[in-house]
């Protein structure tokens, strides 16, 4: 019988070979450490404005005007946060923003999911033209319509109301686009199979398509929510009272340079940044998944 397997002698490297291998390993470790170092520096740069805001919001007004830089406050002035709530109805603003952003998100999900379904799964005349028209809205700067929209909404008597803040944003080309992108990788066989099973379109959407579009829904939601939360120009125009003011507007009205106000203002800023950052951090994974990948496993 042929010698098919070499003799299994215990394997020993000589010193020279061992040191070559060791050097290679050390080189790799050094590279990794270097990468980690650079990343740490860059991360601090990116994070700096936020860290700075937190730090300043915890300083006492007296410290604000100090002419030397100190990241850490002398003593934590947590009362700034309580005071910020006293100066402006931040609670109301946050509630408003939540209502507005949530409803916008839901609206975009529904309108986007339906529209994208039609674009991707159904045949119709001129569908691609309509789709192009939808995408073209991305190119129309909001400012090109804001005057007309404002006057229109004013005419309807919608100023200073939730509807004014919400309704114009109930759909978005980005959402439709994202959904359609996602649907593109959706196995068409599932649709056909559902059709063979006698499933109607609307049932298909809600029982099969949407349950399987979780990554897209996640991405769209996070995206829509963050954008809605961070809207500035439109709410600035249409909200006129604290009752309907969103956080971005409310907080920017705290803008002032006296040291007393600076700390409160920054406390306010930190407070309003937290929800969107929070949503971002919990939604980041699905955001990435939904924005860029999009396949149904099964």
């Amino acid at each position, binding site marked *: 019988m042929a010698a098919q397997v070499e003799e299994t002698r215990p394997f020993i490297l000589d010193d020279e070979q061992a040191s070559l291998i060791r050097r290679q390993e050390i080189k790799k470790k050094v590279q990794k450490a270097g990468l980690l170092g650079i990343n740490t520096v860059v991360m601090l740069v990116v994070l700096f404005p936020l860290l700075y805001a937190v730090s300043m919001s915890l300083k006492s007004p007296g410290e604000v*005007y100090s002419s030397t830089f100190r990241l850490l406050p002398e003593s934590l002035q947590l009362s700034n946060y309580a005071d910020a709530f006293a*100066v402006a109805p931040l609670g109301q603003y946050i509630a408003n923003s939540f209502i507005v952003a949530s409803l916008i998100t839901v609206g975009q999900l529904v309108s986007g999911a339906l529209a994208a379904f039609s674009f991707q799964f159904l045949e119709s005349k001129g569908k691609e033209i309509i789709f192009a028209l939808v995408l073209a809205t991305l190119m129309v700067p909001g400012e090109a319509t804001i005057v007309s929209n404002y006057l229109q909404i004013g005419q309807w008597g919608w*100023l200073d109301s939730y509807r004014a803040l919400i309704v114009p944003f109930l759909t978005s080309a980005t959402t439709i686009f994202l959904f359609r992108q996602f649907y593109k990788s959706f196995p068409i066989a599932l649709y056909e199979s559902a059709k063979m099973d006698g499933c109607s379109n609307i049932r298909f959407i809600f029982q099969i398509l949407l349950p399987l579009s979780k990554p897209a829904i996640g991405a769209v939601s996070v995206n829509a929510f963050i954008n809605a939360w961070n809207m500035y120009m439109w709410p600035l125009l249409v909200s006129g009272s604290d009752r309907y003011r969103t956080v971005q507007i409310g907080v920017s009205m705290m803008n002032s*340079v*006296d040291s007393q106000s600076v700390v409160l203002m920054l406390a306010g800023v930190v407070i309003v940044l937290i929800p969107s950052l929070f949503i971002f951090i919990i939604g980041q994974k699905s955001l990435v998944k939904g924005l860029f990948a999009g396949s149904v496993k099964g």
Partner: protein
Amino acid sequence: ACTTDDGDSAVVEGDAAEPETEAVSTDVTGEGQTITFWHAMGGDLGLAVDQLVDRFNETNELDITVVSEFQGTYDDAITKLRSASLGNLEADVVQIYDIGSRYMLDSGYVVPMQDFIDSEGYDISQIEPNIAAYYTVNDDLYSMPFNSSTPVLYYNVDMFEEAGVDGPPESLSEIEDMHDALVNEGGADMPIALTIYGWFVEQFTAKQGLDLVNNGNGRDDVATEVSFMDNDAMINILEEWYALYESGAAPNVGREGGIPEFVSGQAAMTLASTASLSSILNEVDGSFEVGTAYLPAVKEGDDGGVSIGGASLWALESGNDEKEQASWEFIKFLISPEIQADWASSTGYFPITTAAHEEDVFKENIENFPQFQTAIDQLHESSAESQGAFLSVFPEARQIIENEIENMLNGVATPEEAAEEMAAQINSAIENYNLINTPE
């Protein structure tokens, strides 16, 4: 087509409100109404306003409820009001800064104070005449002064003593003379932190005794163009300003700077509204002694005074007599001596009624902080002549002026060019406005 209406056009507009005027009779009490009050007082001032409102809500016997809404800066507030008029946004009482007055008159949706005063026979003699003058057109008081201020010079007394400088400057050119002493001996980084603020330009013009716009500073008739070119008011100001900047006496601190530099001890002086007094004292917190002085003249020997600044309260038409009456009740409350005294002490604004001076709170406050007195004296020394300009596009004009000052300081334009550019832009804005907004 330029409007040929005289100043009475506002009154004509006001006539539209005449029926209401009559309707303000005994059976209209404003009882049980809820009215919205828009104000532009941020920060500490805002807290003070809210306190007043709360107090009114608690104490008024007519069960009127006032909802106060902060609308941002003065600019934001008038912008909001203007755009609100396009829709359904409603306010009953709004606080509008001095320079918004002409626009308010033109707007056609205000109820003149005079209507309330006349129908009730309210006695306004208490109101400081210099203050009332600003808001009076053809002897009718259109809005009720509420928070009135003038600009004053704040200076660091410790620094001045250190530097051996006698007292605050009386004119801009004097500042240059103190420069070396204040910096070298006083330890200041800069003699003065001069905020780029259109209001100061307006006040420097008044201080020169000159008009900003034609037609009697816009009070005899609707202004049709600026007059600061013809009377050299602007060029004088800009040249002095630029000279201070050039020499380093007044570095460019932007539109937001001024007070921060002063309270942090970098600047020996700054210009600011009297309204800033309490917050400046707060911020300085005793780290040095704060002195106040009259607004410096542009050149020595200028014989004008300062005009009243701050803001006034406007009652808006709502088509609901009860509501309008409620607004009036609220306004009356705000100008009552007791409230004014309180308000003045906690902010730095003048009490607009002389009676307030008699209140204990006020007296006490003046005793503790004699700096308050400067502003009052300054106002009293100014004549009603320097009542300030009336201009529909005043907010825009102020922006233009500030822009051009920035351009000048940044070396983009010389003082002459800046002044010319201001004139050109403001004139075109006036023309445009008058063209479109001719009452039908």
